[in-house]
């Protein structure tokens, strides 16, 4: 996709919308076709009535909202609620494609260096009861970004993407850091506008200047760092009281207002009468019940107290195996969560005393050793932990998440990677595509020979950590242990260990893990956001610095490993430099990714695909691979009749066609 084409496309979309508005109907999100064709009424396709007051649930221990201030939080548990309270520049549709929201058209004419957004009129801020407070204008995005980048106002939250992409953002952040707290809190946007690459020539125009060519910058517009904030609200509450404001004090511009918030019990979102998108189909209320005990959702679904439930393993089995069960025909598979899970090696593992674990480190640096695991893991049983009905639906062969990026001919980036790795892009069997026992045995024998010569003792001990109270993770680890240990007798010994509260603080920080499974979800729409995390000697590379510790490996001790990393880093950096031709950029990234995987520097592990009972058509939800909009309760197709397995198979077929 070229930047110019984006602009054309968006203009076309805007025109369609205008027409649609005049016609008094039709799709307001034109690319929307996953069973979400009706507007306003959003009639369900399975014969039921749309639900007016939906009740959903979350786990209170880990998913309760802590902060109502969208610019001030980076946590999904806050953003999942707050995305309903604010109006963004752009939105995402159910296919993962950017759609106009407050910005009606947008684009860049200089390969992603300058981005212009045209904003619609008639968007307003309201209080919790829906009473008008102010108009939402381009100035509110300037205020919002100033708040984010002001160290004393926002304490560094949400700064990473703006600092990396917007001209002058880092300098302004450093500038405010030097100021006294009181002085920084009192800053208005004058100095900010001087320093940072943002301007609003009029109330309907917003221009960002990037610090480098960022052909993907518009995808950032769905993230919390580029959300609006009204100066009038700051004036009303006082600059010191912004952090800590309540749902009753804050202002709303999104589809809902948060009318009730009872911590660890219940939140109620009520339709915002002044919401700009009059064609959107919204619920009258959305109730989110918080559960201290997460396996209650099945029970609540049965008694009709919630409209969706995830199925616990034993319950799923019981329903699946009993043909006469009332829910037997209603088992539906969720769409994959947006995370691509990898098994990351730690190349600089330490023991509990802080000394290097030489045995493991030497083994992990050996390519044959890594490849024996890469090819030797038959993960079917592990995937069956999440999805015992179709384990291979959890199969992941690539590093980047599928469904995030597309070539201009519509090919999924990830399919290209899989193709180049030499696997079929769809799995028609129920066997894993990568698993190859013969290859694994070959690499294993070579590894044993080479490593024995280097003084490595077998079995190699592999420490794997799980959260103590998470029984599902422990079960999965037990299965994984069995899978890895069956690569060879006396080859690898997996030690399952536990941590109490924090993986980073207790395990990966002190470098105690041998391998760790971690899922990465995109922050913005570019392969750089995935592969950039694995670069050698790069400060921004998350996994290199925090999981694999490749930067701490002594080059003299593992020359091959470092050489491989350097080669990969060069390939990825070359790809990042291509900004004028997106296809060429993606192809270069595909090559880098294939190189990375063929040397088994990480091992693609799984997607999360689980089963549920539901009254919601998941294919009508926003499919936000990046940004914070996944949980926006807008244009959902729901039905008083539960969806059936057949309904969902139909949705999937429609979706893929």
């Amino acid at each position, binding site marked *: 996709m070229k930047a110019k084409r984006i602009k054309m496309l968006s203009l076309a979309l805007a025109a369609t919308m205008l027409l649609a508005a005049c016609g008094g109907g039709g799709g307001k999100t034109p690319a929307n076709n996953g069973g979400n064709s009706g507007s306003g009424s959003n009639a369900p396709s399975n014969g039921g009535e749309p639900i007016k007051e939906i009740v959903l649930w979350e786990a209170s*221990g880990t998913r309760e909202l802590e902060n109502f201030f969208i610019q001030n939080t980076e*946590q999904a548990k806050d953003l999942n609620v707050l995305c309903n309270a604010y109006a963004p520049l752009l939105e995402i549709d159910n296919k993962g494609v950017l759609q106009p929201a407050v910005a009606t058209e947008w684009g860049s004419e200089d390969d992603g260096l300058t981005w212009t957004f045209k904003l619609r009129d008639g968007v307003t801020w309201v209080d919790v009861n829906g009473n008008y407070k102010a108009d939402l204008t381009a100035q509110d995005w300037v205020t919002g970004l100033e708040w984010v980048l002001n160290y004393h106002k926002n304490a*560094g939250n949400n700064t990473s993407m703006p600092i990396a992409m917007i001209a002058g953002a880092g300098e302004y952040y450093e500038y405010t850091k030097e100021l006294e707290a009181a002085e920084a809190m009192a800053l208005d946007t004058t100095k900010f506008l001087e320093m940072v690459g943002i301007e609003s020539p009029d109330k309907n125009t917003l221009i960002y200047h990037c610090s480098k060519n960022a052909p993907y910058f518009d995808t950032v517009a769905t993230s919390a760092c580029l959300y609006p904030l009204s100066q009038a609200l700051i004036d009303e509450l006082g600059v010191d009281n912004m952090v800590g404001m309540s749902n009753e004090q804050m202002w709303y511009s999104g589809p809902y207002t948060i009318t009730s918030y009872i*911590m660890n*019990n219940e939140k109620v979102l009520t339709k915002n009468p002044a919401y700009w998108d009059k064609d959107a189909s919204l619920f009258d209320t959305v109730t989110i019940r918080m559960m*201290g*005990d997460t396996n209650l959702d099945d029970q609540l679904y049965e008694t009709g*107290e919630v409209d969706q439930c995830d199925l616990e393993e034993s319950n799923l089995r019981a329903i699946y195996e009993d043909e006469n069960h009332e829910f037997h025909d209603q088992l539906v598979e969720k769409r994959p969560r947006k995370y691509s899970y990898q098994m990351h090696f730690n190349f600089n593992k330490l023991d509990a005393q802080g000394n290097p674990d030489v045995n493991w480190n030497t083994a992990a640096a050996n390519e044959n050793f890594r490849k024996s695991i890469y090819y030797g893991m038959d993960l079917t049983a592990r995937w069956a932990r999440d999805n015992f009905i179709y384990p291979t639906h959890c199969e992941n062969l690539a590093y980047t998440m599928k469904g995030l990026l597309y070539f201009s001919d519509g090919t999924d980036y990830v399919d290209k990677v899989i193709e180049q790795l030499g696997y079929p892009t769809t799995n028609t069997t129920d066997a894993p595509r990568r698993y190859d026992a013969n290859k694994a045995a070959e690499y294993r024998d070579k590894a044993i020979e080479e490593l024995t010569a280097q003084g490595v003792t077998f079995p190699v001990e592999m420490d794997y950590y799980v959260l103590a109270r998470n029984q599902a993770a422990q079960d999965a680890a037990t299965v994984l242990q069995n899978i890895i240990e069956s690569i060879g007798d006396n080859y690898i010994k997996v030690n399952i260990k536990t941590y109490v509260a*924090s993986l*980073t603080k207790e395990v990966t920080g002190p470098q105690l893990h041998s391998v760790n499974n971690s899922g990465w979800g995109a922050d913005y729409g570019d392969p750089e956001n995935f592969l950039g995390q694995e670069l050698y000697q790069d400060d921004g590379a998350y996994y290199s610095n925090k999981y694999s510790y490749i930067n701490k490996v002594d080059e003299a001790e593992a020359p091959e490993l470092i050489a491989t990393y350097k080669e990969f880093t060069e390939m990825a950096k070359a790809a990042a430099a291509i900004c004028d031709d997106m296809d060429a950029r993606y192809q270069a990234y595909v090559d880098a990714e294939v190189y990375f995987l063929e040397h088994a520097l990480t091992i693609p592990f799984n997607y999360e695909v689980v089963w549920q009972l539901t009254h919601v058509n998941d294919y009508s939800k926003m499919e936000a691979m990046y940004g914070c909009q996944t949980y926006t309760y807008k244009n959902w197709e729901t039905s008083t009749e539960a969806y059936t397995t057949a309904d969902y198979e139909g949705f999937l077929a429609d979706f893929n066609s």
Partner: protein
Amino acid sequence: MIKYTIKRLLQSLLTVLVVATIVFLLLRMLPNEYYFTEDQVNKLSEEEKNERLRAAGLLDPIGEQLLRYYGGLVRFDFGDSRRIQTGVPVLKVISERFMVSMRLGVSALLIALAIGIPLGILQAMNKDKIPDHIGTAYTVFINAVPPLVSYSLILVFGAHVLGLPSLYSTRRPGISSILPIACLSLASIAHYALWTRRYMVDEMNKDYIRLARIKGMSNRNIMIRHVLKNAFVPLAQYIPASFLLTISGSLLAERFFSTPGMGPLLTDAISRYDLNVVQGCVVIYATLGVIGVFLGDVLMMIFDPRIRLVGKGETR
């Protein structure tokens, strides 16, 4: 008496202060890393982390932090919550929750007293007969089955058989409180029945009761005028504290029924390193505990005029 009360209160204040200090110091033993969320630990550089810690005053000498903390305590200011409800004063966080816990707890306690004490009396009066055995079986069973199991059974029975809501709801506080109150009161009933029976049986073996019997007093009269009255004295001591401490909620029951109360607050706050909330909770619990003991002594004195508080130790 007044002098004694003042002395007691001052001592109590000291205890609370020491508890607050100890908890303060204990919490400072946690590594500073716990101050940050998972994401922040990874994303922030060492320099940025230090800056934020310094901004929060956590890098100051421990004595200075402690003095600041005492300063806040004097003004009843426990600071702001950092992770439970970002930026909201701790007192507000707590005050939003304790009413729920207290309502459930007090209801459960009243039920327990109303059923448990009569049950104990019934048992004592029919010692070694059928009612006694039934009561004992109940107390033994309740004590024997871990709450994790008994709560699960109550939950399933209540939700599936009786159709009661299995989650607490502020919109229907009445009906949705039934199951949590049932869970809480089951154990307390057993507790009060057990101790009522025990104290009464102890009392019944005393010489003056034998004398009363020999005198020809009716059994009923003996029970009400002597045994019960005297057996109630040791029981009464703990009742005020029990009432006050309902504020702290029940960790397990509240988590089970997702009650928006104090129960899970403390563990949540610890695991999220929300130090101000932890300290606030602990100081409040300690204060209530100490007041409870004091009131217990007063209550005992009312029931048993022989007991004189003056000159007695704090613990009994």
